[in-house]
């Protein structure tokens, strides 16, 4: 406790206290002068933009997180099993994490703009160019970007988990006649339950960071398919709709917190 006191105090002052103030403001008017009860929550809940943004955010999480977790696990297992060159592969997969968001955006534009590289390839093939960022394809580009950026990170975490599983268990299973698939399902996966919780939570939190690229490419009002909660909150801030912003933030925090508790119950307690 003593050891973590400075961090705890810092987090308390810069994160928890402000959040408590946000929660307080969610029951007040924009300037925090007049108590409004649950009016702000009702406004937010009935707001079409919030529903769309929340829906997109949930959809993004539901699509991306399982995809990321599973593909990172398979990749980790594959890389772990390599006799040589493991470090080289780790570095290659971690590189996307080091690329700044602005550079990623530049590449996006070069590739996916209506007059970009892919558009020109389509044109050469006799098809009409596609405005990826102005169509439903924008959502899938966001998914691909998220997977590309975070695959290496999750893979490293999985590899840390994999290295913690005793070799004896695999040897014993091999002697008993278990093949690689059975060893994976009956030894690897159960032993990774604890770290699964951590990886899922981190992946969930990282999924919100994809807003950076989305904002830099498509601005404050992107195509509806990639309109996230952060876009909405950002615009509410510009218009000084603080009461809605606070109510929305509290709702979002409550949902994420609930989700983390569920995950902890599912995997965290089995540790």
């Amino acid at each position, binding site marked *: 406790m003593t050891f973590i006191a400075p961090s705890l105090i*810092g987090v308390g002052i810069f994160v928890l206290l402000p959040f408590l103030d946000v929660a307080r403001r969610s029951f007040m008017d924009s300037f925090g002068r007049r108590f409004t009860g649950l009016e702000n929550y009702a406004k937010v809940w009935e707001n079409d933009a919030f529903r769309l943004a929340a829906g997109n955010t949930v959809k993004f999480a539901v699509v991306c997180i399982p995809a990321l977790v599973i593909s990172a696990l398979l990749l980790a297992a594959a890389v772990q099993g390599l006799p040589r060159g493991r470090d080289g592969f780790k570095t290659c997969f971690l590189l996307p994490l080091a690329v700044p968001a602005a550079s990623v955006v530049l590449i996006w534009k070069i590739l996916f703009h209506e007059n970009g590289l892919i558009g020109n390839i389509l044109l050469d093939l006799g098809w009409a160019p596609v405005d990826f960022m102005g169509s439903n394809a924008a959502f899938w580009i966001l998914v691909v970007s998220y997977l590309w950026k975070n695959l290496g990170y999750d893979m490293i975490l999985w590899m840390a988990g994999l290295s913690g599983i005793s070799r004896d268990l695999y040897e014993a299973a091999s002697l008993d006649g278990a093949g690689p698939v059975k060893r994976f399902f009956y030894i690897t996966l159960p032993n990774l339950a604890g770290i699964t919780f951590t990886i899922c939570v981190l992946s969930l939190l990282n999924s919100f960071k994809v807003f950076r690229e989305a904002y830099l490419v498509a601005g404050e009002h992107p195509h509806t398919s990639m309109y996230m909660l952060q876009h909405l909150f950002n615009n509410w801030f*510009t*218009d000084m709709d603080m009461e809605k912003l606070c109510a929305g933030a509290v709702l979002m925090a409550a949902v994420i917190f609930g989700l983390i508790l569920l995950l902890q119950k599912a995997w965290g307690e089995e540790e």
Partner: protein
Amino acid sequence: MKRVKRGTALLLGICMIFITACGAGGERGETDRAMGRYVENRLEFPLEDNTPSTMLQRSDGTLDVLYTKYTEDSSDPVTGFTRYHSADGKKWDEETLKWTLPPESFLSRVAYDRQDKAYVMALRYGEGDLDAWLFRENGEGVLERMDIDLKDETGSPMNIAMLGTMQIGENGNIFIEQRGRGVSEYGTNGNFIRFYSSGEMGDSSGFVLSGDKIYVLDTVGSGVLCYSTEDGRLVQNIAFDGFSDYSIIGGGSGGTVYISGRTGIYRLNAGGSMWEKLVDGSLTSLAMPSIYFSDFIEGPDGSFYLMGGDGGNTAQLYQYVYDPDIATLPEKELVVYTLRENAALRVAAGEFLRDHPDTRVNIQTAMDGDSAATAADMIRTLNTELLSGKGPDVLLLDGMPVDSYVEKGVLTDLSHLIKEIAKSEKLNETVLNTYKNKDGIFAVPSRFRMPALFTEENLAGDLTGLEALAALAESHPDKPLIGDKSPGNLMNILFASCAPAWISDGQIDEDGLREFLETVKKIADTPAKSYGTENEGKTGQFSVGSGVRGVSVGKQNNNEDLLHWAFGRALAYSRELRGYGSLSASVLALRHVENSTVIHMPGQAENVYIPCGILGVNAKSEMKDSAEDFVKLLLSEPMQTAEDGEGFPVSMAAQKALVDSVDEDVYIGMGGSGTETENESLEGGMPEPKEKEIFMKLCNSVKTPYTADETLAEMIMNEAKGYFTGEKDLEKTVADITEATKLYLSE
């Protein structure tokens, strides 16, 4: 060991708490109370409505002001010269000079030698060239011609058009500046001695002699080059970082050098390399962008004199005197916030300080050109300040979410202020009430713009709306309605005059939108040729203007379209009118086309105007009274009469003054650069009062404000593109626009 760890952790925690508690402290509105500063006095020159030709200083430090007398004879207007002399800038003694110049020449430069004898440079426009003569005043006060071989540093004849200032050295040598190059020195018999360069990339804009040194101002190199006049050697290169759009260098006693500009007056002591700021420009008229200064002089009592004018026929003598009993900085500070630079605020700040010497106006420009931040970023930063109760006192709300601020109670009610102003000044009530609601008036536009259409009178009468515009275009298959009738340009032109009819209360009326798109397509699809070859057959540029939350109508300086109309290739021409100062080109075209007129842009809304210069006072301001005084100043006639290119004034008296003002002797012209227009041009004098009256009638008949924002306009235009290229039909386009904007409007 445990105790040490615990103690260390506790100490770190306490430190973090204290760090978060640190802040700027203090109350805004009060500043430090150091005493003493230079105070500005405005003195009158001896003649009103007449700008002196130059201001000089005699060897005893007293002032001379020279006036040139003119006649109506434009071929040889100069008839004589009068000199006024004063010791303090207040009492003047008149003297008629015996100077005569060669026929058809005019006074260019005057300088005194140590015996206060004048040296005069006269110029004359010859055949395709300028002739120059130098004269020296003899003992009887008569000018005698001097032979002088005006050369540049290469030995070639000097470019007379680039002649700058002239001064006479202690030994009688003559120093003449070549603007942009440097200074040439000539002996007493007019022989060329040497050249003092303002540097390889330099741009000299003045020099001063001090003892055996010459200081040349180099604005490009950002400094002053000091040469020895004995051998021409560069002695010192003194850096200076206070340059502004103009800078004047002057000399003082004891070898001091002064530079004055918008940022203030600086002094360099003899032999020194550090500049001392004596006068803060922001606390005086020096910072006012509407005033241009010249002829810096250090008075015998240590005060400074500058001649300042607005470019017209009036000039004033600005005197700066040190007062040890006044606070160095005014006690209070009024913070005025604007997203983008606004000249009217700077002018008002100077005037405000004169009437409120204890209050300094701090103008915060969020986007100053160097910043990479967007307007939205700046607004979010501002919102943070407003929410914490520390925002600016006065806000220029152009480009900001005005409706949101009004709704959230950020702004204070200004109804009482408007009532007070209305007692002494007549204001355009329609524009003033743009943001009026049941609770009051929380935002007040100080200016407005108007989308307008120029066409022939017999056509204008029938143009009652958008359909009539389309009917006109269809009935003339040989000429386009506007020169560039591409859909993009048409959308830009017509958006402001149509959108108010179908965008309101956060909703888009689909029927109105449908009619708008259909009509634009009708006009764009008429058989007549569209000018501007890059747009032929294409949709054109769908662009939205930046700045004010509103659509910039068409291309800002679309003089090509103006020439197409003026020379009969188009039925009409459109322009967003931004004040009486921006009417010159339009009036030239009106004169050229017989029986022509200008009307409000026909559209689905009637007589549309675009409010700008929108002022608001922060409801939580601690300087509310001063803030309201500042707003009142901006709405007053003197401020409204100043032309800043932002829009027409809301003050009726200012409108009348601007309409009645006459700019004689100013000749304007414009020409084309396109394929059809490159040999075409229009020329003439400035608009006359009668010609400006028609614009005043338009100003007085505005009805519908256009207050939709750029984001919405851009969304609509982006979705509409496909309709004009034929990719989608009208219903799909309307559905797509409704879908695309639904999200934005529902936020």
